[in-house]
């Protein structure tokens, strides 16, 4: 973290500057990244749009059709003012279907990301803090889960629990996606627990739980946030892929992947049935990836500031090239995920 500290010191050079918390600094850096902020705003807009259009659960939205009712075909289901995204083969309104798919994708993304983060943080924190036998056992368990590729374990889990609805599917998938975060958090804890402030807390008589949650975890929060954002981006892709294979969300509920797989055969005759869900999958995943990238830059400015050309120009004075400076955790987040 020493690099971070010097950066912060740079930014606080003015002697009269009021004390600024680490959180505020990160927030400020994130806000200065235009692409990431625009992505975050656009993402929220898409979410609000999809919720307001077809409503949420029993609450109706402003759009006149819902995603279950069958309507008369207008112009063989091609996009019209009546059905802006067209209609599928049996006359369902494709705009409502797509909006429902977006809601489900975001639901799966958030639930999966949260579960994976919580489990990963707990496992990683316990393993890294207690070390020794506990660490060895927990890491071997992590190895067991990590041997199976995400899509394969996802298919099996989806096959087992997909019938219970999007929420339960995401919940169960989350319990099989925590391994990356656990390894990262463990690494952070292993190095943070040797620091003086932890020793001070221990001398002051703080309990293990207090040290873990009050003292170490806040220092490792950057890694967790960045990693869970990146997991969320891959969760969108995982859910759509599973639904495409038939192991994800089941009919009559809708998912973007399911829409593509059930309309794939009509690609030549009705391409819009393919393009809308496809475009929204890519957009959502891209936006979350941009936000994740922005967060990483905000938590770990070194990751972004390094500039080869600049370095060549002012070779002798460049202070950041202090040999093999240890990568901070947030930069490592990308390495494992």
């Amino acid at each position, binding site marked *: 973290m020493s690099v971070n500290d010097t950066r912060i010191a740079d930014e606080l050079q003015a002697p009269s500057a009021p004390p600024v918390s680490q959180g505020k600094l990160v927030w400020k850096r994130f806000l200065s990244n235009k692409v990431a902020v625009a992505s975050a705003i656009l993402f929220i807009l898409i979410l609000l749009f999809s919720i307001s259009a077809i409503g949420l659960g029993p609450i109706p939205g402003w759009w006149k059709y819902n995603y279950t009712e069958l309507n008369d075909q207008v112009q063989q289901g091609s996009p019209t003012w009546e059905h802006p995204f067209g209609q599928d083969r049996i006359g369902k309104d494709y705009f409502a279907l797509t909006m429902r798919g977006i809601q489900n994708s975001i639901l799966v993304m958030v639930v999966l990301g949260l579960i994976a983060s919580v489990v990963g943080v707990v496992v990683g924190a316990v393993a890294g803090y207690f070390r020794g036998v506990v660490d060895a056992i927990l890491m071997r368990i992590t190895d*067991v889960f990590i041997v199976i590729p995400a899509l394969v374990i996802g298919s099996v889990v989806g096959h087992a629990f997909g019938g219970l609805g999007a929420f339960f599917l995401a919940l169960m998938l989350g319990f099989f996606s925590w391994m990356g975060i656990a390894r990262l958090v463990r690494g952070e804890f292993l190095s943070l627990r040797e620091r003086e402030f932890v020793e001070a807390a221990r001398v002051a008589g703080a309990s293990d739980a207090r040290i873990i949650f009050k003292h170490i975890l806040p220092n490792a929060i950057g890694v967790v946030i960045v990693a869970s954002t990146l997991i969320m981006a891959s969760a969108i892709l995982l859910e759509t892929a599973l639904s495409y294979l038939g192991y994800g969300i089941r009919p009559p509920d809708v998912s973007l992947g399911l829409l593509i797989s059930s309309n794939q055969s009509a690609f030549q005759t009705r391409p819009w049935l393919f393009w809308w869900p496809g475009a929204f999958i890519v957009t959502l995943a891209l936006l979350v990836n941009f936000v994740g990238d922005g967060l990483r830059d905000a938590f770990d400015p070194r990751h972004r500031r390094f500039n080869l050309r600049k370095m060549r120009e002012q070779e002798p004075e460049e202070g950041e090239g202090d040999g093999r400076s240890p990568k901070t955790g947030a930069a490592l987040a990308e390495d494992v995920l």
Partner: protein
Amino acid sequence: MASFILRRLLVSVLIIIAASFLMYMLVAYSADPLQDLRGSNSPNKTQLINARIQLLQLDVAPPLRWLLWLGGAAKCLIPFANACDLGSTVSNAKVTDILPQALGSTVQLVTFALILAILLGVTIGIVTALRQYSGLDNVVTFLSFFLYSLPAFLVAVLLKEFVAIGFNNFLAHPTIPWWVAVLIGLVAGLIWQSLIGGDRRRRLLTFVISGVATAGVLLLMSAMNWFLMPGLGPVVMILLIAATVIGATALISGLQNRRALISAAIAGAISLVCYFALQPLFDVSTIGTIIILAIVAIIVSLAIGWFVGGYDRGQNMRISVIVTIVSGFLIIVDRFMQAWPQYFQDTNGRPIATVGSSTPGLEGDMWVTGLDTFTHLVLPTIALLLISFASYTRYSRAGMLEVLNQDFIRTARAKGLPERTVVVRHAFRNMLIPITTLVAFDVGALLGGAVITERVFAIPGMGSLFNLGLSRGDLNPVMAYFLVIAAMAILFNFLADLAYAALDPRVRVR
């Protein structure tokens, strides 16, 4: 070293056993292997159900059944005993009988995708790192973000519907309109000027020359009906081999190293002679002939490097081997192109396939069947490699930037080494170290991705074994699939560790 390998092996086996238990329980409790029989209305329904319960030992509780399965799978470890028993499918076929063919098909697909992804990804990553924040770099960065966010099945479906059908339609009337050629020329010019860099005048010159050359070649190919009767021909072959000789020498040792240039030139000249002399032999070749020729060629090129001598024999040998491999590849490609018209006819003018792994009923010599495999593999391979390609580009770019930032690079520059030596000898090798770890991770991801690619392109491989097994509630093929990919993942992790130790002397294997 031996104790390290043994310990790793033991831990890996334990991990596989535990993971197989996890997998077995999940599938066994969720899948119903009797579902198709329950719905049937044949008169001997109960008999059929009983027979299947007998066959798959469904009356045994899943944890015990897992033990039985494990016992059968453990027999696979006995070498040459052929006692492997992975159970049978619901349709009473031995899993060990269907496994080899499926495995072969998937390994082919994954290997091609992996090699191409590494080669392309690392090359582009290095180039963008050396031209950081240039137009090319920004475009590639955005593209890799885009590829990260692109689901594999979407890519596969798009390739199938657009590229395959579009290219086949194009081949019906293979002429490139002039505006397409101009557009491609513009893009090529932009890429080259960003790559070569320099001041504004040099950039403009590069842009014009490369753009005009690209567009001209495209129009020439279109005018000569090249896409129906492709081939490199003697003139192009001479040019390409000469370019290889100069390029390889310039990249590895620099052109001022005369010995290196001489050995590269001799290797190139011999390749060229072989190109003319061996054509009759190629007509009657089999894969065995080609392999023997390749081995002979590599030995000869090593000898060339050795006998040319000089102060760095190893370097000469490396260069002449590289020249030989590239020229040999060109010669083979040329021979495949000569078989293209016949293959084009055999497939009724629609050569790029969208389904399966070979054309049923196709007959022909090695070159025609080789083309057939190629046209079936090309789209699935692209679909599979695009995603890992993105991560290789990003990692090698980041790795290269990090290495270039270090003190020993500054030292190398300070003592006056040319930039080529700094990049190729000092930076490149150190950048490879983290890439090895990525390869190990990536193999698992590629094997998982093959499930989707094989489904879209209807390839009968491991992925479809898993997919079909899971949807039919058929436990044994799913477990066989798991066993293979887990073993491969662990094998590659192990190889990555060894490669890591070989590349980085600071790492000690204990």
